[in-house]
């Protein structure tokens, strides 16, 4: 892949690319790992705490408490997004803030807020899935592929 890209460049461009790369500050990978670990873990911890609350005081059993927990996490993410906090937190946290539920909610809420100016239908309705759409599409495609593999190995009939 990298070689393919290089082949299309002239010699001068290749030389320049090397010069540019020597100056470019590298992404602080170790720092990003540690921050993502802390932030992602903290979000999950909050989720776990909320789930425990639903189990202890909400009268849900362990399995059913997952649903209201997800709803609360989505709500929290959307509130933080609309307050303009989530994007700043994400610059610090990196991949940690992309943990499924809150990151997904942020991608939809941010697109909806941003494109509100183009109207409810074409703006909010049409652009809301701008970032989340690909996740759903390829998530479904991947699930389909895994389903086929499952069928071939274990045979039909499901669980």
């Amino acid at each position, binding site marked *: 892949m990298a070689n393919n890209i290089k082949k299309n460049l002239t010699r001068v461009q290749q030389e320049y690319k090397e010069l540019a790369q020597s100056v470019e500050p590298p992404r602080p990978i170790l720092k990003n790992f540690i921050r993502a670990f802390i932030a992602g873990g903290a979000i999950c911890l909050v989720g776990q705490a909320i789930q425990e609350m639903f189990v202890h005081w909400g009268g849900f059993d362990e399995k059913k408490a997952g649903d209201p927990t997800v709803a609360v996490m989505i709500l929290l993410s959307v509130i933080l997004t609309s307050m303009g906090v989530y994007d700043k937190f994400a610059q610090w946290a990196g991949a940690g803030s992309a943990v499924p539920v809150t990151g997904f909610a*942020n991608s939809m809420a941010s697109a909806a807020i941003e494109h509100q100016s183009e109207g409810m239908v074409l703006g909010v309705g049409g652009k809301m899935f701008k970032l989340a759409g690909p996740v759903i599409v390829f998530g479904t495609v991947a699930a389909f592929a895994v389903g086929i593999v499952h069928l071939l190995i274990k045979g039909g009939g499901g669980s």
Partner: protein
Amino acid sequence: MLKGHQSWLFENKPFIRSTATVVGPFEGRGPLAKDFDIVHGESMMGQKSWEKAEKALIEEAAKLAIENAGLTKEQVQFYIGGDLMNQIISSSFAARTLSIPYIGVFGACSTSMESLALAANLVNSGSAKFVLAGTCSHDSSAEKQFRYPTEYGSQKPPTAQYTVTGAGAAIVSMEGDGPVVTSATIGRVIDMGIKDPFNMGAAMAPAAVDTIEAHVRDLGIEPGYYDLIVTGDLAKVGYEIACKLFKKHNFPIEQTEYSDCGMMIYDYETQMVQAGASGCGCSAVVTYGHLLNRMRRGELKRILVVATGALLSPISFQQGESIPCIAHAVSIEAGREIL
């Protein structure tokens, strides 16, 4: 008058009669805050959308520049402007409000000097008495068009740049006093194959170097002729690359002070801007605000402003195209009142 291969020499000495700069709250917290005419406290500027806010910025800057020149808008013959929005809507919509005959130009972030060079040429040739040149950018409208929704949580790499929310405008005329526009060099489009839209500095640096070298060659001068040469918005990464390219080409940049507008407007310590600033507004507000103020105070006699632009579109980089870049240089020298 054509001088050399790609430069204009303005022998009739057109002046920058007045300037105006309007910026947003984030720029107002930066180190150059006192050089700007208006600092807004809120990035929406009381408008309903980011695009409308950007238009409000350039409208305000244009009106203030005309007022500072002691003119009315009926006396201004032409308005030359452009911006980063698709179909340069901010400038065209501002021209609708101003109702000054309008020439829309697009040079991405090089628009500030492209419009100033054209304005000076019109005045120098006698095609106009008063010309308004201006440009603007808004961080959120640029993010929305070129990157992600503003509130979307994505981590930017250290090479990314922060688009300046601001507008700068100037009135160029033959009558009056002020800094003189002495020459300009129109740049070639240079593409060194950089594809990363989060690394504009590296993409634009070769264009800036090419234009600076062409300017010096065309005019038959040394870089030391200028007290200061500034590039538009290369920021940290592009600036460092430009320095290396000058060295590689044996170009004596050390004769003068070389700096970059994208490294002046924000405080790296307290403001989260990664490599530095970018956007049409960056070179416009730094030049029309900070640099000309320094010239008016007598600290600078001759400067060369080289505004750099990345000519990509949101579609071109998604299709995997590399980023073609351009740079336009304008030489500004202290006016008669100072010398």
